[in-house]
């Protein structure tokens, strides 16, 4: 097992260059997959027998919810890597995740709310998914708040890493307790979209959107991470050359 690539990636100048290249390679597939998902989900897929055309919100809501969770996990894992191996690059990645993740959590809540109104009759329901998402948003905001409250970047990196790790341990606990709590209070109607069999014409665009969302996140995160790496490396020698290479 070669750890060379791991340590190479952890080298700031190398990461800065590679990430720049990757963003370009990720952006275009993301656009194409997203376009297919949108067209497939909005136009080609048939209407749902229960929810009619209203179910189409799933094509943006489900990827947003997926991102909100996946990004938090990525944030916690890279924060842990940064803490254990003292890698600035890992801390930079963690810092880059926060705002992106929080914004998609808000999107998941908003689209979930818009989906809930026609299906449940109300814009807000304390159903397990929305409630867990709301708490996840608070976890993100706490992370962002702690980071901005500590001026010294290395200290902010380490403190927020501890918070992210504690948070990620809590996410399943919080989710389970909310599901348990909610199961006791029968919710009026249940979203029937977890049926095991979803026709392929519905499923394919959805999977495409999930993939597009993931690629989009990585591209966004790498873009931010490059800047975060610059901030942490201060006046290291490689920066001058790298910046000159770019403007050339």
């Amino acid at each position, binding site marked *: 097992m070669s750890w060379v690539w791991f340590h190479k990636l952890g080298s700031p100048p190398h990461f800065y260059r590679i990430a720049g290249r990757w963003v370009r390679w990720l952006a275009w597939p993301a656009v194409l997959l997203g376009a297919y998902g949108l067209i497939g989900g909005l136009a080609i897929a048939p209407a749902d027998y229960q929810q009619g055309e209203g179910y189409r919100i799933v094509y943006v809501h489900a990827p947003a919810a997926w991102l909100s969770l996946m990004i938090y996990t990525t944030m916690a894992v890279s924060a842990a890597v940064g803490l254990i191996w003292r890698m600035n690059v890992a801390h930079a990645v963690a810092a880059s995740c926060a705002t992106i993740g929080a914004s998609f959590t808000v999107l998941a809540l908003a689209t979930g709310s818009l989906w809930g109104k026609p299906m449940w009759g109300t814009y807000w329901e304390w159903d397990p998914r929305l409630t867990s998402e709301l708490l996840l948003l608070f976890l993100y905001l706490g992370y962002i708040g702690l980071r901005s409250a500590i001026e010294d970047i290395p200290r902010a990196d380490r403190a927020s890493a501890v918070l992210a790790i504690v948070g990620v341990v809590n996410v399943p606990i919080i989710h389970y307790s909310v599901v348990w709590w909610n199961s006791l209070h029968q919710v009026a109607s249940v979203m029937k979209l977890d049926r095991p069999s979803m026709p392929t014409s519905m499923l394919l665009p959805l999977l495409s959107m999930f993939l597009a969302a993931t690629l989009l996140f990585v591209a*966004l995160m790498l873009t931010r991470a490059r800047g975060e790496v610059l901030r942490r490396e201060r006046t290291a020698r490689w920066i001058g050359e790298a910046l000159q290479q770019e403007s050339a």
Partner: protein
Amino acid sequence: MNWLAMGGYAQYVWPSYALTLIVIALNIWWARRSLARARQEAHRRIATQKERA
């Protein structure tokens, strides 16, 4: 034009998609601005360091 009306759910479906596009656009803009700012700061730091040297 039933498609635009989304079978009566238009007021929920279209705002959802609009919000999604807005969030994506905001994220792209933010990320690029964050990188641009970091580059500018790095430039300045290196320039002042050269002056001191």
